[in-house]
């Protein structure tokens, strides 16, 4: 092994510039890959943090599990029995959670639950002066909501407490307020689906950083939303639950379903479309960036092929005095791994430095209208797993590139080379 390492090292050292360029190619590929993964993962982590701050971790939905089962059973029977239905076979399936107060009491008794609040969403048209905008009024219990989300912390102007002080108070999303041209203290008019109108006073402007909230949502007292939707005092569109843990919510979700008889979703299920979008963007980016590594691998193959072509005579000599094919193969695979390993090491170091620099001195962007998330600062996730994984990928690519190139070396027939050289 020492001989193999020695010969491999001398080959590389005899072409310092070429070796350095090959290592630089791998290092660049690794560094760019790690930085991109850190960037994309940072974006996902940033989005998730924002989401978890302002959304309930679990949501009890209006959909009753019993109703679902009844519908499924009837749907199955209808296939064979030509049953015609003029309306769904449940007495009242309006999308509300009924008996919400009793349900919240039951939910509070479930271990792992830290906060519960009732919410009612009402589709309205909000108008201020001559400007009207479609919006969602999310009626909440202002005090209970503090145990469920950190919405209160997202109020940039005015205060969340205003909702408790004023029954007709509204905390309006920042972009929605901008479009309406309204500020704290202004009075808006909300018209619900039932045609009922209600005057609201802006007590706060919220900036959650999430487009879904800031562009079209206003938070009001629960009773206001219930009234505009024509719902009763014990009805809501959802029950919002905060759990002790953020991840691994499946057991609690099932428990809540059993306790309430309603369908329950975790925050990941509720936001699956957005999370999936980020993951897809991330995967596409990784694939594109991964090609940089593949190109670097081709650089190694190219470098080794050049050495092998140049060293064909030396290989023949080594073979003539006893080096086996396996030993010759090992000499060049070691070179490939050395180039790849050194490049991966330097690349990891470079990426770590770049991530540290841009974390200390972040790049900032202007917020974009209509963005899913208000991403105004480059957020980099720095996880040792990326380094280990990408360095391992670089080594595998290097080994494959070396094996690709080394086939020629192992095919060298000493006598043919020596006869040609004579």
């Amino acid at each position, binding site marked *: 092994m*020492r*001989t193999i390492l*020695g*010969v491999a090292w*001398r*080959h590389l*050292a*005899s072409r310092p510039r070429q070796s350095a360029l090959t290592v630089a190619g791998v290092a660049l590929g690794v560094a760019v890959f790690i930085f991109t993964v850190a960037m994309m993962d940072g974006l996902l982590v940033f989005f998730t943090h924002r989401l978890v701050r302002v959304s309930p971790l679990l949501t009890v939905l209006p959909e009753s599990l019993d109703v679902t089962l009844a519908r499924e059973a009837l749907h199955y029977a209808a296939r064979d029995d030509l049953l015609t239905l003029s309306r769904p076979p449940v007495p009242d399936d309006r999308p509300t959670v009924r008996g919400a107060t009793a349900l919240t009491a039951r939910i509070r008794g479930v271990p792992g639950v830290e906060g519960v609040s009732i919410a009612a969403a009402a589709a309205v048209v909000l108008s201020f002066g001559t400007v009207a905008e479609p919006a969602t009024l999310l009626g909440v219990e202002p005090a209970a909501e503090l145990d469920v989300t950190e919405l209160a912390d997202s109020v940039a102007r005015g205060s969340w407490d205003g909702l408790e002080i004023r029954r007709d108070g509204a905390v309006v999303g920042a972009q929605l307020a901008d479009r309406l041209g309204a500020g704290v203290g202004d009075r808006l008019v909300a018209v619900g689906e039932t045609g009922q109108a209600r005057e609201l006073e802006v007590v706060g402007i919220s900036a959650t950083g999430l487009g879904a909230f800031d562009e079209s949502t206003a938070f009001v007292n629960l009773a206001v939303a219930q009234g505009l939707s024509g719902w009763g005092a014990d009805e809501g569109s959802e029950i919002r639950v905060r759990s002790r843990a953020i991840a691994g919510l499946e057991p609690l979700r099932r428990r809540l379903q059993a306790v309430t008889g309603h369908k329950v979703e975790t925050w990941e299920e509720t936001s699956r479309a957005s999370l999936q979008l980020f993951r897809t963007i991330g995967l596409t980016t990784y694939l594109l960036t991964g090609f940089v590594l593949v190109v670097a691998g081709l650089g190694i193959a190219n470098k080794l092929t050049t050495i092998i072509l140049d060293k064909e*005579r*030396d290989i023949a*000599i*080594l*073979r*003539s*005095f*006893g*080096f*086996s*094919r*396996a*030993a010759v193969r090992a000499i060049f695979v070691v070179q490939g791994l050395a180039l790849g390993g050194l490049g991966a090491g330097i690349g990891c170091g470079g990426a770590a430095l770049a991530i540290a620099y841009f974390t200390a001195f972040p790049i900032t962007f202007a917020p974009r209208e209509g963005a899913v998330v208000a991403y105004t600062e480059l957020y980099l996730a720095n996880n040792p797993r990326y380094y280990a994984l990408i360095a391992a990928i670089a080594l595998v690519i290097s080994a494959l590139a070396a094996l690709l190139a080394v086939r020629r070396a192992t095919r060298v027939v*000493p*006598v043919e080379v*020596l*006869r040609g*050289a*004579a």
Partner: protein
Amino acid sequence: MVVAGPDWHLWRIQLRFGCWGGTVVTPPVLVARNLTRRLGVGAAAREVLRGIDLTIAAGEFATLVGPSGSGKSTLLYLLGGLDHPDAGSVAIGGTALATVGDDELARMRNRLIGFVYQFHFLLPEFSALENVLMPLWARGGGRSREDHAWGVELLGRVGLADMADKLPRELSGGEQQRVAVARALVNRPVLLLADEPTGNLDSANARVVYELFREINRSFSQTILVVTHDIEWAARSDRLLRLLDGRLVGDERRGESV
């Protein structure tokens, strides 16, 4: 002492001691029978060697001469296990080369045969001493103090004791070829094969290399077969083999013609 029997490993060891330790041995080191080799393909194929029979005894210093294209180098490569005959067989130290696999053949070349080529073929990244020790490295040795001392001694024997740390490019053509000779001897081979070792040297250096071969042959009873165009070499060797059109047409031993 004649050593015979099926245990060729023992026989080889005895031979080695015979060559390098002073014990006299006489069994044939190399036996070739009916060697035939065709080169080229299709219409361009031609028979380079036609039924060569050859036996080289231990301690012989033989030269092989013949015009260009007569098949001298081809024969040498076959005898050294670097090439495979189309027909016939080669046995070194009692082992038929055709019966061993590729890796075992490489090991046999390493342990039994030393090669010197027309070009020195030194590895340019390694010093003279490292080049000499390379065949020992190939079998996992060459790192001990004894091996190191042996390499230095060989360099001393070829007159390059003070050049051990020089790279090949820092040596003259004659010096490079002498390093190649030392490398061929480092494994204490049973048979030293040389393919026109002075072909690229001026007459002064050629004479030095010849004297070196002669000295090695006398000191160690080293069996040597040299392909050469050099008439002086041929005239002064113990045995002169003549090759013409792929056939062995002459075999002379110290004035005796066979």
